[in-house]
């Protein structure tokens, strides 16, 4: 079985995000970029499936600017076998919308015929949480989202989903789209030998046009603003004081 792992190049989670002066988005010029942390978890899971003998090949795919090649090299250094870069933008500020990404992924899936697509539940830049679900709809495949546990047995996968108020275990028929949540695993560091090998692993470069997908934005960003600053808190000395303050504030 092949496992396809879509990975996105996003602003590094340690970077303090700054809104551009004109409010058109977040400033990404000269900012540290990394692999979306949820996608890293997906790559890790795919490699574990391969190590367990349940997958034969792990293919990482990224859609975006040419620099996403670095993100793919990271996936290869972690242990993915090969990578596909689909160049769909030439400006780092141009975000490809989930539907366009899903359409391109559908074409990649049709070409590669994976048994499983493992993706991050969302990208930490715009938190859309839509690509996996859209891909599932376009392909007519089963989907399981926000998973914290996965086991594959033959034509079926058993997954645990993190839902509001608890955990839900379901079975899905393969091939499937599975989106991963934070607690599924802890991604490994790339080992030094794998970093050295990554350069020699195949990285195929395509464009959105190769798949006949129009990536023109369908959504219009009206305005981007910083979150409102939080008001300072106060310290209370006891539970009684806390309760009376909450009452005064009309909170209880």
């Amino acid at each position, binding site marked *: 079985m092949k496992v396809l792992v879509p990975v996105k190049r996003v602003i590094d989670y340690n970077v303090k995000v700054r809104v551009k002066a004109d409010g058109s988005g977040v400033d990404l010029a000269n900012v540290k970029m990394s692999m979306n942390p949820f996608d890293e978890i997906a790559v890790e899971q795919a490699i574990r499936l391969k190590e367990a003998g349940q997958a034969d090949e792990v293919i990482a795919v990224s859609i975006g600017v040419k620099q996403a090649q670095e993100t793919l090299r990271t996936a290869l250094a972690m242990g993915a076998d090969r990578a596909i870069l689909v160049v769909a933008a030439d400006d780092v500020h141009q975000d490809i919308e989930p539907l366009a990404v899903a359409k391109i992924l559908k074409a990649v899936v049709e070409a590669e015929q994976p048994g499983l697509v493992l993706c991050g539940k969302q990208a930490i830049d715009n938190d859309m949480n839509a690509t996996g679900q859209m891909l599932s709809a376009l392909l007519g495949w089963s989907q399981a989202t926000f998973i914290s546990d996965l086991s594959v047995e033959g034509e079926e996968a058993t997954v645990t989903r993190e839902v509001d108020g608890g955990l839900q275990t379901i079975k899905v028929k393969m091939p499937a789209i599975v989106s991963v949540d934070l607690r599924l695993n802890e991604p490994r560091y*790339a080992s*030094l030998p794998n*970093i050295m090998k990554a*350069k020699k692993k195949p990285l195929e470069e395509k464009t959105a046009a190769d798949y006949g997908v129009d990536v023109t934005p369908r959504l219009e960003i009206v305005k981007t603003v910083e979150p409102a600053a939080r008001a300072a808190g106060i310290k209370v000395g006891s539970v009684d004081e806390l309760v009376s303050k909450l009452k005064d504030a009309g909170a209880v």
Partner: protein
Amino acid sequence: MQYGLNEEQEMIASTVRSFVEKEIYPHEALVERTGEVPAEIAAEIKRKTIDLGFYACNFPQTVGCAGLNHLEFALVERELGRGSMALNHFFGRPQNILMACEGDQVDRYLMPAVRGERMDALAMTEPGAGSDVRSMSCAARRDGSDWVVNGTKHFISGADHADFVIVFIATGEDITPKGPKKRITAFLVDRGTKGFQIRDGYRSVSHRGYKNMILEFDDCRLPDSQVLGAVDGGFEVMNTWLYATRITVATMSVGRARRVFDYALDYAATREQFGQKIGKFQGVSFQIADMITEIDAADLLTLAAADRLDKGLSANREIASAKLYASEMLARVTDTAIQLHGGMGLMDDYPLERFWRDARVERIWDGTSEIQRHIISRDLLRALGA
């Protein structure tokens, strides 16, 4: 700033950096407080480093290691420099000098060292022989086919965890027109050898937990098979292999300075006084500008010196410049970072006072700033006959 590095080299640096952030930083406060690295933490760092193939990555592929070149290894050590030296000691980087092992020394010392089975340390300095190495009084005399060693070494970093120590010992004296000149030999000395003792040294302000140890030789008997390199060839093995320790100091100073700078930058951007962020005051903003300029300069100087070694060019002066400039830069950067933080910078609630203390030794060990200036100027002047 990653001028001229390829993707692979950047990935090596970023991997080591995240390793240090996740595996070293969380234990630093404990080590600083107790002055000790708990054995289980040491073992865990070592095991993870071995698993990742980074252990002894300064050693060549011929002995089963990664064989990083000087530039790549400088990147590894630069990122390690961000973290505690006591802890990242276990991100093992045995002394290059072990490549001088011959015959069965390869299986007894070199291979176990690069596999992480046995740890090494290097001993040169004595209470009476610092910069003037050749004035050492620790001496070995011939007795039959053995050597009998007497004397003391101090400031021996890492000897507390060492299974064996590479020790430089005087093995005779030549009479020259300039006066007597000692002949030096390098020996491999196992912990537990009769007449050889490793004991605690002094309590240093810099790098708590990265202990400096005292070695004592009391009629310690060593056979010829313990000689590393040739008898009386100590300076040759030293010159062939030990140049790299100065790059280590330079590149680690750069890594630590970048970590310190992040604190300073963040504070300048968030701390408010007189109704505005202190970074808006020119007096603060210019200090920020000077700090990053000096850090980048030291970084480039160090990587360029390492790159010269990879290209087979002479690098003695360049390495000395890098060591001198980077260690002095770190002193200024840590001092300025504390100044920007005001009184809080001195409190041990922040790690800044630690970085400031740690920075002090970098201008002293592996050749003081004065020795580096001597090397640099001699290199230029001697060529002109001065």
